[in-house]
C-alpha cells in the first residue's frame, strides 16, 4: 500500500526532524526563539529589537522574538530553564531578575541554571530631581537630607528593582533617612519627580534622558563605571565614594544549561559582531544604553558580582528576602 508507506515515511521524517536539528553542524536549521521577559516596549525588549536585524544577519539564521512577560521576568526565566538545551530557545533579557530578583525573593531559578552567551548593552540607575530644588548636586541633596532627616520622599522604579536598592544603599552608607515611594517602573517614578510629587527619583537612566537634555530635570548621579559622554556633568556614584551601591543593569543572552558549546560560540560571535556595528551602537546610545560586548564568562562574573552586591545592600538596609 503506497499510501500507507508514504504516511510511515512522513512519520519517520517527523520523528527524525528534531534529532537531526540537534546536531550543531547544521545549526540553525529552523528559526531560533528568543524569549523576552518584558512586555513589548520594556527596556529589555527595546534593546533586543534594536539589535535584532543586525544580529540575525550576523548569526546567519532566523531569530524569532517572543515576549513572555510576567512575574518580574520569572515566567520567561523559568520557561528557558526548562527548555531543551538544543540552542533553539534562548533567553534575551535584562540581568536584573536573575541578579537582583534571586537575592530579593525565593525563585525557582539561580545564577548557575544557565549558560551565559554574553552581555551587550549597559544601562544605569539615574538619580534626578527638578532644577528648582534647594540642591544642585548629589552632595547638596545628601547634605539637605542630613539636615532634614526623614522629611524627604523619593520615587523609585519599584520595590524589587535595582534603582531602589541603589538609592537605599546610598542613604544607608551615609546614615541618612528618606522615605521611598514605589512606582511601577522608571517612567512613572520620573514623572513623579517632574510633577513635584516626590523630592527626587531613582530609576533607569535611559527613561530620564529626554527630560535631562531639555533641562526639565537635573541628573544628580548615575551608577555606571564611567560618566555618560552625552551627560558629562553627571558624576558616577563611584566618584563620590559610593561605588558599593552600584548594581549593574545590562542586557544579555542566556541559554538553558547543557546547550552545546558550538551553539553558544556561534551566538556569542554573532552578538560580538553586532555590538561592534556603529549603526547599532548609535541606536542603543540614543535609547540610553552604553554598548560593550562582554563574553559569556565575563557576563557570568558580572552577574555574580551584582547578586552579591544586592545581598550586601539588603543586609545593610535591612530588607528581608521574601
Amino acid at each position, binding site marked *: 500500500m503506497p499510501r500507507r508507506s508514504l504516511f510511515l515515511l512522513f512519520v519517520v521524517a517527523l520523528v527524525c526532524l528534531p534529532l537531526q536539528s540537534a546536531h550543531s553542524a547544521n545549526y540553525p536549521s529552523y528559526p531560533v526563539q528568543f524569549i523576552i521577559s518584558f512586555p513589548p516596549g520594556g527596556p529589555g525588549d527595546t534593546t533586543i529589537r534594536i539589535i535584532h536585524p543586525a544580529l540575525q544577519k550576523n548569526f546567519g539564521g532566523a531569530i524569532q522574538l517572543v515576549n513572555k512577560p510576567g*512575574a518580574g521576568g520569572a515566567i520567561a526565566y523559568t520557561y528557558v530553564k526548562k527548555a531543551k538545551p538544543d540552542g533553539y530557545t534562548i533567553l534575551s533579557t535584562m540581568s536584573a531578575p536573575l541578579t537582583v530578583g534571586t537575592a530579593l525573593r525565593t525563585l525557582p531559578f539561580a545564577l548557575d541554571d544557565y549558560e551565559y552567551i554574553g552581555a551587550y548593552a549597559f544601562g544605569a540607575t539615574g538619580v534626578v530631581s527638578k532644577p528648582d530644588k534647594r540642591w544642585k548636586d548629589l552632595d547638596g541633596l545628601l547634605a539637605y537630607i542630613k539636615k532634614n532627616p526623614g522629611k524627604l520622599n523619593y520615587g523609585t522604579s519599584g520595590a524589587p528593582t535595582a534603582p531602589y536598592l541603589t538609592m537605599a544603599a546610598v542613604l544607608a552608607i551615609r546614615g541618612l533617612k528618606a522615605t521611598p515611594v514605589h512606582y511601577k517602573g522608571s517612567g512613572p517614578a520620573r514623572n513623579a519627580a517632574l*510633577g513635584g510629587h516626590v523630592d527626587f527619583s531613582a530609576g533607569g537612566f535611559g527613561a530620564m534622558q529626554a527630560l535631562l537634555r531639555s533641562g526639565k530635570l537635573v541628573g544628580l548621579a548615575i551608577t555606571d563605571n564611567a560618566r555618560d559622554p552625552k551627560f558629562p556633568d553627571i558624576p558616577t556614584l563611584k566618584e563620590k565614594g559610593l561605588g558599593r551601591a552600584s548594581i549593574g543593569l545590562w542586557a544579555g543572552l542566556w541559554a538553558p544549561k547543557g546547550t552545546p558549546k558550538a551553539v553558544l560560540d556561534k551566538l556569542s560571535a554573532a552578538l560580538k559582531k553586532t555590538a561592534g556595528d556603529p549603526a547599532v551602537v548609535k541606536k542603543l546610545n540614543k535609547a540610553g544604553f552604553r554598548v560593550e560586548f562582554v563574553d559569556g564568562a565575563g557576563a557570568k562574573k558580572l552577574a555574580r558580582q551584582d547578586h552579591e552586591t544586592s545581598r550586601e545592600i539588603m543586609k545593610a538596609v535591612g530588607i528581608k528576602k521574601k
Partner: protein
Amino acid sequence: MGDLFANLYFGFSVSLAPYNLLACFMGVFVGTAIGVLPGLGPVATMSLLLPITIKMEPTAAIIIMAGVFYGAMYGGSTTSILLNLPGEASSVVTTLDGYQMARQGRAGPALAICAWGSFIAGTLGVLGITLMAPALAEMAVKIGPPELVALLCLSFLLVIQFSGGSRPRAAASALLGFLLSTVGLDPVESTPRYDFGTFTLMDGVGFAPLVIGLFGISEVLINLEKSEKMEVFKGRIKGLWPTRQDWRDSAPAIGRGSIVGFFMGILPGMGTIVPPFLSYSLERRISKRPEKFGTGVIEGVAGPEAANNSATAGSMIPLLTLGIAPSAAVAVLTAAFLTHGVQPGPLLITEHPAIFWGVVTSMYTGNALLLLLNLPLVGMWARLLTVPYRYLWPLILLFCGIGAYSVSNNPVDVLLMAVFGLLGYMMRKMNYPGAPLVLAFVLGRLFEEKVRQSLVISRGSYETFIAHPLALLAWIASAILLLYPFFLRGKRTPHFPAEEEE
C-alpha cells in the same frame, strides 16, 4: 497662529507624500482588522509590526504604528455590536446598547454611527494635539496620587449607575471586580497576594482573559442554550444608515464623548478603557430617557465610541511632548521611536519636526481614511449576522482563544478565559451585569496604588486627599452626584419631546 498653519502645511507635505500616505493606509487598515478580532489588540499587533517597520524610514514607521493604534478603536466596536464580544478592551461599554441595537435589526445604524463618531472624535482629538499639546502635558504631570484618588472615586460614582438594572447587583459585581484586582503582586511593596504560588497569577488576573471570558464565552454559552434557531438576530435588517432622528440623538453625545475621552486620555493609567465608561454614564445621567439605556439607544453607542477615539489622541500628547507613555499601547509606540534612534520628548518637535508634524497630520488623514474604509464595510458586517450561528460560534471561540493567548503567549490565560466564561454565564443567568466588574477591576488596581502612594508621601495623614484644590473639586463633584437625585426626585417628567434636545 501663522506659525501653526506653516507647521501644518509642512506636516501635510510630509504625511501626504505617497510613501507615507501608503504607510498611513496600511496602519489604519491593519488597525481596523485587528480591532475587529477580539483579544488581538493594538499592543500585540504593534509589537509584531515593530521588527517589520524597522527597515522603513522613521516617519513612515511611526505613522504606520500610530495608525494601528487609533485604527483599532474603529474596528473594536464591530464585534461588540454584532456578537456582544468586545473586540477591544475599550469597546466593553459598546456592547450594552450596541448589541441590543443589532438584535433589533439596527446593526447598520449602530456601526455607521460608530464610524462617524470615531471620525469626528478622532479629528477633534488631533485638533486638540495640534493646538494645546505642550500646555496639557505639563498639566497632566502635576496631577499627583491624591488628585488621582479623588478623580477615580468620581469616575467610579459616575459609572456605578450605568448598569441600569438592580443597584445592589451592580455593586456586588463591582465588588467582585475590586477583589479580583487585588490578585497578584501588590502595587507598592510587591508582596505576592492570592497567587496560589503560581507565576501566572503573580501579575494578577489578565485583562484580556477576563473580558473575553466574561463577555465572549458567556455569550456563546447563552446562545447555544437557546433553541435550535440560534441566530443573533432573526428578522429583517431595518436600514443600514442612521436616520435623522438617530443623528439628532447622537450628535451631542459624540461631542461630549470626544471631550471626556480627550482629557481622560492624557491622564496616566486611564488609557482608553475608562473614558468610554465615563461617557456612557454621563450620557445616561443627562439623558431624558435614562431608563431606555441598555435596550439599544444610539447615544449609548455614539458617546463611548467617540470617547475611546479621542482618548487615543489624548494619550499621544504625553508621548510626543514629554516622552511619557500613559498606557501599554503608547509604550510600544515609544519603543518604535527608540528603535529608530529617535527620542520622543520635549525636544522632539525641534529636533525632528518632520516626524512630529508628519505624524500629527497623518492622524487627520488616517481618520478620514478610516471613515472611507469603515462605512462601506457596514453592510457587509451587518449581513454577517445572517450567517447561521452553528457556523459562527466555533469561529468566535477560536478567536477568543487566540485573543486570550496572544497577549502574553501564556497558555494558562486560555484556561483563565474559560473560567471567566463560566463565571460570566452564571452572572448572566442570575442577572448580574458584567460591565461594573470590568471597570472596578481596572480602576481597583490604580486606586490601591494611588491611595497607598498618597499615604506614604503624606506620612499616613488622610488630610492629603483634600489638601489639593483639584482633589477637593473632585470630591465636591462626587458629593453633588451622590445627593442630587434626592433633590430631583419627583420633578422629572416622564416624557420630553425629542426636539428639546440641544
